[in-house]
């Protein structure tokens, strides 16, 4: 058997794979948070609940409408993104000029309500979601076994992250977004409908969370608290990466997933706390986060 640093290779690569999977979700979720924070100046505490709604929507659509994974992957982010647009129009737009704290409390309250409603309706036990037929099974790479679905999740989230980064940093629409993040009043005075951009940005961020939820459904059980479990770690990721940095959110998400996975191999006792330890260290050395712009 192949060993690396005295660790059997399948264990090492197995944990690396789990780290990359977790990292994919950290990256997708912290990316959405970063996009929303940049434009709305709101720390979206509803994000975990919206991720959970994505997973549930996929589950329910499969269960009751026979809508398969691939269609859900497209339809669910649009659907849940639309509920985000509604939330922005109904609530968030009215507290834009108030202190950050109001947005935080409002979105946190919404998360509690949404999760409560789902728990009432569906109970707290996890519901299984079948891996789509096309991606069942896996391949033996020699040094490890790679399930197809997990490979897909990593590859697809990389693509989504890159596409989002590209759209924001390299396109004309993205330049509107960056400019409106810096000085919304002036961008509006140039004739751009900034309030509509803000609404759509929130919808997009929520849609990303829902997309992550659909992708997570076949890996983790679909349950009302799946979001709140994950989101705590994601907030630590965001703090480490720095609020508002798109690239920072992506890189930190994947990197911390991997670090967490490797910690599980080399120092299992610390695996659940390592991210928070890193967060504390980063906060001491670079309070704005690794990629954050100091304001």
């Amino acid at each position, binding site marked *: 058997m192949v060993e690396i640093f005295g660790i059997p290779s399948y264990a090492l690569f197995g944990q690396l794979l789990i780290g990359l999977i977790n990292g994919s979700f950290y990256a997708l979720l912290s990316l959405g948070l970063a996009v929303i924070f940049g434009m709305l100046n709101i720390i979206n505490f509803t994000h975990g609940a919206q991720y959970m709604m994505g997973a549930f929507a996929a589950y329910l659509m499969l269960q009751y409408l026979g809508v398969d994974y691939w269609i859900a992957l497209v339809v669910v982010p649009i659907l849940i993104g639309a509920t985000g647009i509604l939330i922005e129009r109904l609530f968030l737009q009215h507290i834009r000029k108030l202190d950050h704290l109001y947005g935080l409390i409002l979105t946190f309250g919404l998360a509690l309500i949404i999760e409560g409603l789902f728990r009432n309706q569906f109970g707290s036990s996890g519901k299984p979601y079948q891996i789509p037929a096309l991606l069942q099974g896996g391949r033996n790479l020699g040094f490890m076994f790679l399930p197809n679905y997990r490979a897909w999740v990593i590859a697809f989230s990389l693509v989504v992250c890159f596409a989002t980064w590209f759209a924001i940093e390299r396109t*004309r629409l993205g*330049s*509107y977004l*960056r*400019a409106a*993040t*810096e*000085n919304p*009043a*002036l*961008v*509006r*005075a*140039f*004739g*751009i*409908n*900034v309030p509509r951009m803000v609404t759509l940005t929130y919808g997009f961020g929520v849609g990303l969370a829902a997309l992550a939820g659909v992708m997570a459904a076949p890996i983790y059980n679909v349950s009302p608290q799946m979001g709140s479990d994950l989101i705590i770690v994601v907030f630590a990721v965001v703090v480490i990466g720095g609020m508002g940095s798109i690239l920072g959110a992506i890189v930190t998400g994947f990197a911390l997933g991997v670090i967490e996975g490797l910690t599980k191999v080399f120092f299992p006792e610390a695996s659940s706390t390592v991210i928070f330890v890193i967060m504390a260290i980063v906060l001491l050395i670079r309070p704005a986060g690794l990629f954050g712009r100091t304001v």
Partner: protein
Amino acid sequence: MAETSALLAVTDLQAWYGESHILHGASFEVRAGEVVTLLGRNGVGKTTTLKSIMGMVEQRAGSVRFDGRELIRLSSDAIARAGIAICPEERGIFSSLDVRENLLLPPQLLPGGLDLDHIFELFPNLRERQASQGTKLSGGEQQMLAIARILRTGARLLLLDEPTEGLAPVIIQQIGRTIGALKAQGFTILLVEQNFNFAATIADRYYVMEHGRIVDHFPTAALAANMGKLHEYLGV
């Protein structure tokens, strides 16, 4: 007053920031093709006047008519679409955008804007600096960029807020020539200036502001006769 009717007619303009009442009924007008300068000491409300015309001050009242259309209740994006553009006092160059992105940011809203080649003829420095980060430009270049980017939009009325502030004399001259060229192209310009000597080289008429009101106005021809009064108004 006017042989041609005003392109911009501001009547009894009032503005507030929260509790503080800043504009107390300013009235003035700008005719098509004119360069009109708003003079006044620090803090009298010149910037607030431009921002109120542009719709960037939330609490405002009175009347702002542009091309016959009332703008006082419109949002700033709607006012931009009506054909007004602002070059703010702090310049407002975006640091997360490169020079080209800054230049292309304001969308073309109306026909008749300048094309990029034309803009680069007016501001040759910007052509070579297109890939630089917007805020890496020198102060003078940033000012050029702030003016340049509103020329593409098709706006007919340009609101320029102290474009010479803090710049070297050579650059000020260059900006003066540019404003002259823009006037020749048919742009109408409302300029806020404290640099009186600069304003004298390009303006057709002057309004003097004090405590949020227009207290005097005269054409460039009457400048010499009004010199004494002006020194008093401006405290120079």
